[in-house]
């Protein structure tokens, strides 16, 4: 643990140096006209990177702490137990109450969904091979290329004659 603590201290001292010494120095140089924007940017990002390294190291140390581990483990188990009991109570309570007021239960919904899915699949299978063939229309006449209809009795009638008749 002391090795880990010294790692955190090392990161902390790098951050302090970058944030409290190098960054103000770069800012002062820029104000006094001795440094440029680029040097200030560089010092700023160096301080940020040092902060991220410090935060990572601190998090790692927190994870490795036995007390943190034990508290997290215990909290997780407690939360899961509460949820387990809550689920059991909910299903016991609503399992009896729900049908008495005429509402379907979750399992009834689930089985209904399964049934609908099965019917849908059945329907898809039944429809797949069906090909609708168009029946030839019984027209009672033959249509020639120039639009003349020849009836079985040998009578001929042009399209426009028909329109005239309708008018």
């Amino acid at each position: 643990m002391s090795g880990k603590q010294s790692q955190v201290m090392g990161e902390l001292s790098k951050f302090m140096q970058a944030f409290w010494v190098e960054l103000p120095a770069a800012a002062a140089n820029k104000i006094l006209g001795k440094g440029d924007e680029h040097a200030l940017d560089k010092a700023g990002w160096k301080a940020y990177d040092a902060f991220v390294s410090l935060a990572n190291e601190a998090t790692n140390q927190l994870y490795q702490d036995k007390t943190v581990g034990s508290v997290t483990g215990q909290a997780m188990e407690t939360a899961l137990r509460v949820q387990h009991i809550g689920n059991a109570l909910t299903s016991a309570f609503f399992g009896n109450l729900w049908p008495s007021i005429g509402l379907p239960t979750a399992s009834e919904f689930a089985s209904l969904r399964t049934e609908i899915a099965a019917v849908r699949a059945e329907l898809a299978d039944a429809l797949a091979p069906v090909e609708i063939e168009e029946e030839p229309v019984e027209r009672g006449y033959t249509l020639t290329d120039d639009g003349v209809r020849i009836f079985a009795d040998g009578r001929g009638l042009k399209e426009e004659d028909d329109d005239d008749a309708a008018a």
Partner: protein
Amino acid sequence: MTTMPLLNDIAGYWFDGAMRTLEAFGRGYGSPETDPPAVTPYEIIYKSGKVSLRHYTPSERLHKTPILFVYALVKRPYILDLQADKSVVRNLLQQGFEVYLIDWLPPTSDDKNLGFDGYVNEELANAVRAVQIREDVEQVDLIGYCFGALLSLLYTASHPENVKNLVTLTIPFDLGVRELPISNLVDAMSDASVDLITKVYGNCPAWMVNANFLSMAPVHHAFDKFVGLYRNAERDGYAEMFDLFERWMMSDVALAGETFRELVLQLSKRNALVKGEFKLGGKKIYLKRITCPLLNVVAEKDDVVHPQSSMPLPDYVGSSDKRNLTFPVGHLGAVVSAGAMTKLWPQIGAWLAARDNNDN
């Protein structure tokens, strides 16, 4: 650096990130429906149970043995085919390999009893069989990534006759290694808590899987990645890659209840695989049964699976042709970094090619 625009931009990125997280929580994180369009075209050649098996065809096939890529169970597989120049799949195709990829379908409430035995001896075994039939071969090359490497290892130990070469990439093998800070929190989780998670939720929910990943690097996910985006916004393609990556980070999938129990209680807390006590379907796993060539790829800067956890694997298998290949990248860098595309995957391809002959 002007302070106000800087804070404005970072606040904007942070807000977008918060919205992404809320939207992911609302839709239940990852599923095949929320994947981005595929970069490399594929054909699904087999779909059953929890497996959707993709087939990618190379423009020119140079190797006889097909590769079956076994992806992890906990996130969507499009990280392996993220962009045209950052695609492991495309890289292997360009090297002339026939590539098959297992896209694990998310478990439903009916799958809460699905454990490692089901995943390895049924789902993965069916996928291997599908490749054998389609390719008319007796053996396949297995490449497993992370959790997928663990499944590949267990499969090879159970069915050694079907595997020609095994590549394990960032495998969480020796889970007795406690180098990662998060390990202490996993240790603090009681057996009762693990059982309660499966009793309350059935499967380990996707949000819990996501929380586990985020808690591995809380400072990075809380704000540092958004500051990184600000600092690199001018770099060509960075913002696009950031969006894709963030989307993938929110693509977690629930872990089947029994698999989660076995992973935490047997593999992680008791280190049963390394101790030779892990069982699949009641049968002990003997890693010495693995005699095929093994390439164990270790990411030196891995902060998800510690390198020390992957390194010992070759000592436990029975192969005579076995080695570790260490590469200076992180867990994800092994599949998306430019260095991995130009140096690591060509090495893996060359290793497989050297062991590919026509006696299959």
